[in-house]
């Protein structure tokens, strides 16, 4: 039965329907099976009524009138005709208008075959053109950014791309130029469409006007095979369609999942796939020869690894990484290390994260959809735009709909411009700001009151790798004093939450069981056999132990600690000191170059399994292709190593592992891949965070975080296009690595006699140009993490900064 307050009755083509009150006519009609043609209308964008394709007749006081159904809200008793002669003529007229200046270059257009203009010309067009004049021409195509090209002749000026850029992404860089029939989309002179979300405009374009550099001329739509999966570029897990043609991924499209990504992707989600086919990808096992690597067979490599690991005591082995693998792969790694090797030294984070138990089981834990319904969102962590870009879009959406936003950070973040309040604190002094906020008094009184005034979701994490991880715990503790659905922990690396949930942490066993939980550990031993009793070392602990000689063998799983951990020098020393290093990776990195054996790893889109995002949502990833060359899934690799060591991981395929997880890992009780695919919600399943199978409820406490009092404190944030392994190997975006500057407050700069653009020396070793930025808190310096220019810089809390004379 329909609810009288939420539905209205309308008549479409003589048939009565109950439709959602307040809906736009075009959407209401579509939901009851009446498709009205359209170009400018898009479910996720504000209506503009520009293309006029969706004109229908609505009866009114002065007779039937043609109205655009995309802008017309339904009202009770509305009588609509979508098929009258008048409507047909209007629609045919609009289509003829759209085609008169269209180049009709469909045979060489990427959109041909999946083009709404083609489709609707076929279904709603007049069938022939009466236009015999000369067509309008433009130079084509023109690049509007490094990854997007614009063909103005094909453009139907639907305004979708402009709305995506302006409203969704907050990057108002595409504009309408000129007027009349010379109107065209352009960028401002000298200002390219440099948006982290530019690829979405290509996807929403209803014609072939916007194309991506990557996909252009690569395939015909009817040759594409589409595989539904999720992106692992960050922990949001945006839903995607992976499009393959002739054995290659050629395109990634956003898929609609309103609980997660609303169909949007970051350009990193969308364009990273070209790393799969990078020329220098490792596709065969490699064995160190003393002056490089030689190719080896899998049996040779497996035997070497099994023998060398087997020759160590269990606790002399540690594993680092695994955060970019599936849950099933992570589970097998956890099982292999604990039950076959017998070591508790396991960590999927690289010293840049937060307490694994807090990340896995913060209580209460919010969901992404909670962002749409709370009165305030409170962000204290990394710059979402740079590290969790689709979460940034979700926060923007909530703020567009009236939600308050509070952002705390040592320097400007992408969200500051739309924030209700910004809390700017000196790097290293965050706990002071937090105490002020918690006291509800003093300079942050207004913010405290806002947070106390309604329901709040808190997004917490480390603002950068140089920030004390205990601050995030203190923020999470403060968040528990606020009303609302709870908190979401912010971690960046692909499937970190899945990895932690599978026990890839020094203090966690699969299913969010604490290593200190004797009963929980016993249950896992029932399934696995004996495992180490105590908690192990984390990544930094392992690196130190390796230098000290206590760790003799290191397993690197898709991890590059030399480039991506707080202390690069320590990482180098550890890898050099270790007697044996095996890297399971797809590339030779600054870390795997120290390995004795490199085993080629299958990457995203080459393996199937399940993954868990930052809200604990388990979704399914599919393999669109077999692994490249002789690369293999981690499950197969570890099964073979175990087998060579005389052990059986019972991991013959993903389905078996998945079933074992569903029965062994408490929080995942019943959540197998079969369940996800055949029974679960299409949006994925959030594994329980409170009752039922959840064994660990992590209550954050207000730990004391020491104040850093040195002259200059370091804020060392990641950016979207850093020098990460995937970005470096993804052709179209590899050139987008941000320019490197040290950002410093102008007052500090003047005391140091540093000018905008002049060179400064950091920590006595690194020289970079300075940029004066009043948004940087005084006493802090902002240095980009994981870029070529800052390679080797330690992520300590403070550092020395000096002007370099006679340079810059």
């Amino acid at each position, binding site marked *: 039965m329909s609810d009288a307050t939420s539905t209205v009755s309308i008549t479409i083509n003589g048939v009565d329907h109950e439709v959602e009150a307040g809906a736009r006519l075009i959407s209401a009609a579509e939901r009851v099976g009446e498709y009205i043609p359209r170009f400018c209308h898009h479910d996720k964008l504000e*209506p*503009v*009524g*520009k*293309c*006029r*394709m969706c*004109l229908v007749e609505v009866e009114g006081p002065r007779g039937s*009138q*043609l109205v655009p159904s995309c*802008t017309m809200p339904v009202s009770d008793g509305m009588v609509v005709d979508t098929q009258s002669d*008048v409507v047909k*003529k*209007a629609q045919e*007229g*609009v289509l*003829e*208008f*759209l085609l*008169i*200046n269209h180049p009709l270059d469909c045979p060489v257009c990427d959109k041909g075959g999946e083009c709404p203009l083609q489709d609707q010309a076929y279904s709603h067009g007049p069938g022939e053109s*009466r*236009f*015999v*004049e*000369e067509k309008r021409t433009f130079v084509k195509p023109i690049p509007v950014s490094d990854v997007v090209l614009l063909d103005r002749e094909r453009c*139907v*000026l639907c*305004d979708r791309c402009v709305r995506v850029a302006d409203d969704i992404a907050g990057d108002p860089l595409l504009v*309408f130029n*000129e*007027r*009349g*029939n*010379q*109107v065209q989309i352009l960028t401002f002179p000298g200002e390219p469409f440099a948006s982290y979300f530019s690829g979405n405009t290509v996807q929403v374009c209803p014609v072939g006007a916007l194309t991506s550099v990557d996909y252009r001329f690569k395939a015909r739509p009817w040759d594409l095979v589409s595989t539904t999966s999720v992106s692992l570029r960050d922990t949001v897990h945006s839903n995607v369609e992976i499009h393959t043609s002739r054995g290659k991924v050629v395109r990634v499209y956003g898929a609609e999942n309103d609980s997660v990504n609303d169909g949007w992707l970051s350009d990193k989600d969308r364009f990273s796939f070209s790393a799969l086919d990078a020329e220098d990808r490792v596709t065969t096992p490699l064995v160190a020869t003393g002056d490089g690597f030689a190719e080896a067979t899998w049996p040779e490599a497996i035997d070497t690894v099994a023998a060398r690991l087997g020759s160590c005591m269990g606790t002399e082995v540690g594993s680092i990484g695994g955060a970019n693998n599936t849950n099933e792969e992570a589970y097998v790694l956890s099982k292999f290390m604990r039950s076959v090797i017998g070591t508790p030294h396991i960590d999927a984070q690289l010293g840049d994260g937060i307490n694994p138990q807090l990340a896995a089981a913060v209580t209460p834990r919010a969901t992404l959809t909670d962002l749409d319904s709370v009165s305030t969102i409170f962000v204290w962590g990394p710059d979402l735009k740079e590290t969790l870009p689709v979460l940034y879009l979700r926060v923007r959406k909530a703020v567009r709909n009236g939600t308050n936003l509070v952002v705390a950070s040592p320097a400007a973040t992408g969200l500051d411009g739309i924030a209700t309040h910004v809390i700017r604190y000196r790097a290293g002094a965050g706990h002071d700001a937090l105490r002020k906020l918690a006291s509800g008094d003093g300079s942050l009184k207004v913010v405290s009151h806002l947070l106390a005034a309604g329901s709040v979701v808190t997004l917490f994490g480390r603002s950068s790798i140089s920030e004390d991880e205990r601050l995030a715990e203190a923020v999470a503790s403060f968040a528990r004093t606020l009303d609302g659905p709870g908190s979401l922990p912010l971690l960046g690396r692909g499937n970190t939450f899945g990895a932690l949930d599978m026990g890839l942490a020094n203090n966690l066993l699969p299913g969010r069981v604490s290593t200190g939980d004797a009963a929980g550990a016993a249950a896992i031993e029932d399934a696995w056999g004996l495992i180490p009793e105590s908690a192990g070392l984390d990544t930094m602990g392992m690196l130190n132990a390796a230098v000290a000689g206590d760790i003799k063998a290191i397993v690197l799983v898709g991890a590059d600690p030399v480039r991506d951990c707080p202390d690069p020098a320590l990482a180098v020393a550890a890898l050099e000191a270790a007697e044996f290093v095996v890297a399971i990776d797809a590339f030779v990195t600054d870390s795997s170059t120290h390995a004795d054996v490199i085993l080629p790893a299958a990457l995203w889109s080459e393996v199937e399994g399940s993954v868990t995002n930052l809200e604990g949502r388990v979704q399914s990833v599919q393999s669109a292709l077999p692994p490249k060359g002789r690369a293999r899934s981690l499950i197969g690799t570890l099964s073979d190593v175990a087998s060579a060591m005389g052990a059986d991981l019972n991991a013959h395929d993903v389905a078996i592992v998945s079933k074992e997880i569903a029965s062994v890992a408490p929080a995942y009780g019943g959540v197998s891949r079969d369940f996800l695919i055949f029974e679960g919600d299409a949006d994925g399943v959030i594994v329980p965070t409170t009752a039922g199978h959840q064994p660990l409820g992590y209550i954050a406490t207000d730990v004391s975080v020491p104040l850093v009092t040195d002259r200059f404190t370091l804020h060392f944030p990641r950016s979207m296009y850093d020098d990460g392994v995937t970005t470096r190997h993804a052709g179209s975006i590899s050139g987008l690595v941000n320019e490197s500057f040290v950002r410093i407050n102008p007052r500090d700069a003047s005391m140091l006699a540093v000018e905008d653009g002049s060179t400064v020396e950091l920590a006595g070793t690194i020289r970079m140009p300075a940029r004066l930025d009043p948004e940087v808190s005084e006493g802090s310096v902002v240095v980009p993490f994981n870029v070529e220019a800052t390679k080797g810089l330690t992520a300590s809390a403070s550092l020395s900064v000096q002007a370099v004379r006679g340079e810059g």
Partner: protein
Amino acid sequence: MTETILTTRMVAHPADSHTIDRYLATGGYDALRKAVTEMTPEDVAGEVKASNMRGRGGAGFPTGVKWGFLPDTYPRYLVVNCDESEPGTFNDRQLTERDPHQLLEGAIISSYALGVSQAFVYIRGEYPKGARRLQRAIDEATAAGFLGENILDSDFSLTVTIHLGGGAYICGEETALLNSLEGRRGEPRLKPPFPAIEGLYAKPTIVNNVESISNIPWITLNGGNAYASIGPERSAGTKMLSISGHINKPGNYEIVMGMTWRELIYEVGGGIPGDKGLKAWIPGGASAPWFIPSLHLDTLVTFDDVGQNGSMIGAGAVVVMDETTDVVAAAHSIVRFFAHESCGQCTPCREGTSWLQAVLERIMSGGGRLEDIDLLLDVSDNISPGLKWPPAMTTICPLGPSATAPVSSIIKYFRDEVEAMIGTTEVANV
């Protein structure tokens, strides 16, 4: 029929009607004084409603009724539309240049009536003299206490700001004007919401034409009933008409409506130069369908009589064409104007108007085909379905339908001339 309201001062004192001294010497700002000292805002609005004045900008919607649409929220804005760009109209220009204080006083009284403390006057960029004179009037009125804080010692305060347009006809459309004023592209907005509910900066806004506002001081002083008693009941008051084209005495005329077009053209306008025959005229600006002598000479010059005959008084631009006029060239000239001025946001107007232009150009250059006549009509029909009056539209705003008026007019009244131009060129190579 010598009644004048708007042009009395400029006719009597052509040399200095724009100065504050002359304005004050001829009763200027008496109406404002009366309004703020003797009348409540509601009283003023009541007089305007009683006047039955229909908006002078083109649509002819009663000004007092429009004012009544404002919701009870603040701030509200008044925007005076002086983006007069319709080919053939030049009456707002004269009212602004020759009697800026009358316009300003009207804006101040209107603001008082509407509860507005910030008003804007949007003047087309091609009217620098009017803008200069109005700015001087604003400065003088402010110095004299008629504008600014606590006007005439009341608690009513007002700022009036002039904004110069950038040269787009479409910015005369009230919502495009508001976009332009906000610094956006001059594109008409979707309606609803109408400006009275959600206008400038999303606040309730009244947009009135210069001529409408210039009538307000007289209405305030003399009362709405006095205004309503002038002329026919549904075309009350006087109306400024700009007469141009093939006419002996082109210019602006303030008339009382109700005379015939014959009287207007032959008596007011002095007839056709050289006593040539009258072929057609446009009764209300470039966007209005044409009138022809055999049908319309004895039609009355009122909003309703013109409307019932399928055209409009519009902004009051009368363009007269004598028997020598090449109607295809005339229609092309108008269509080209609209194609050039289309904002380009909606498909039928962007593509349709320039298509009409291209077909007319092809016909004029000898490439016409007989089927082009039906094509012109059908393309027009796809912009303005049914080619009826008032026009239906597939577009966002009436600009596109405006471009169809001259096309349908020449085919309706002068089809033989169009066919003759196409003539023997049926097989023309296109």
